């Protein structure tokens, strides 16, 4: 039993040489009016404009002349939209990676005065004597690790360092 729709689907492949009719199929194409009409249509379509002459050599020359005269040919691969999108995504993720920690750091810094508010008094109205007392009272606490109390060793001379290390050893 021949399936007309299966034959219909294969017609262009037979024309293109990718498939061929069996004897039974070939006979069907002459007996079935529907298939015969379509087979004729496909055969005509396959040679449509086949007789049209193409002045190939003139076209070759024209194309080469226009290529030479025209804008520089993009021999270096251009950035496709896909590569552009990938690049954009990569740049965005790097920006986010940098921005988000900065934001976190920034908000931590912004929150610092509020956090330290009760701890650090407003020193602008404090007298020298009061200031001295405060410094004495906090000396031990501050030395425990508040930034600014750690001595900056980079500014010490070799002699200072020697003296400092000898003091530490003796303690």
């Amino acid at each position, binding site marked *: 039993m021949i399936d007309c729709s299966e034959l219909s689907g294969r017609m262009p492949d037979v024309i293109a040489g990718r498939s061929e009719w069996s004897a039974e199929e070939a006979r069907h194409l002459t007996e079935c009016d529907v298939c015969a009409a379509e087979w*004729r249509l496909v055969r005509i379509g396959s040679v449509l404009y086949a007789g049209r002459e193409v002045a190939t050599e003139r076209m070759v020359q024209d194309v080469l002349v226009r290529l030479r005269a025209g804008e520089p040919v993009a021999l270096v*691969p251009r950035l496709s939209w896909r590569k552009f999108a990938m690049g954009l995504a990569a740049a965005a993720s790097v920006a986010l990676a940098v921005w988000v920690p900065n934001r976190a750091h920034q908000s931590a810094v912004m929150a610092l005065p509020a956090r330290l508010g009760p701890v650090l008094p407003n020193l602008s109205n404090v007298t020298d004597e009061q200031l001295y007392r405060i410094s004495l009272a906090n000396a031990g606490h501050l030395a425990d690790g508040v930034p600014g109390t750690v001595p900056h060793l980079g500014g010490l001379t070799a002699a200072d360092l020697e003296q400092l290390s000898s003091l530490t050893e003796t303690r």
Partner: protein
Amino acid sequence: MIVSATDLPSDPELVAAWCGGDELAAAQLVRRHAAALTRYLAGAGAASSEVEDLVQETFLKAFRGLSGWRGGGSLRGWLFRIASNLLKDRFRQSKGRVFLEINDQDLPDHSDPAGELAASEAEQQLREGLSRLPHMQREVFLLRVQQGMEYTDIAGVLGTTPGAARVHYHHAVKRLKEWMG
């Protein structure tokens, strides 16, 4: 000396040579694909006077943007895609008119005058029928029947799916059969 088809450089080899500055490679690519592009554009409704110009434009655009061609697909398919887009632009410029022209040089050369006449009449009928089809159906039919392409490649050329291309093809065949009686 006879040169077999396997001795000829492949499209990717010619493309690589052209990208290396070899003009002869470009010339060879034009020789290889010009006729197929001409037939396709003529069948797709390009004005006879514009077909050659469109073919040239297709090659120029292709040679200037070969980086856009992914070596996985066929170069010819990619050329058809460019040609199809250029034709669409021309249609837009001409407000959608599809040209239907017939010249003596377009007719197949048959030795049998009666057969030639019948063939030319049938071909003329087909051209008229094609000009009445929606552009997707017309182009799918041409790529499938005239150019012998598979649905996967057709889908790549026309920016659609193989399934949709198959549907367009069957609609085109149905309408053309009705038109040709």
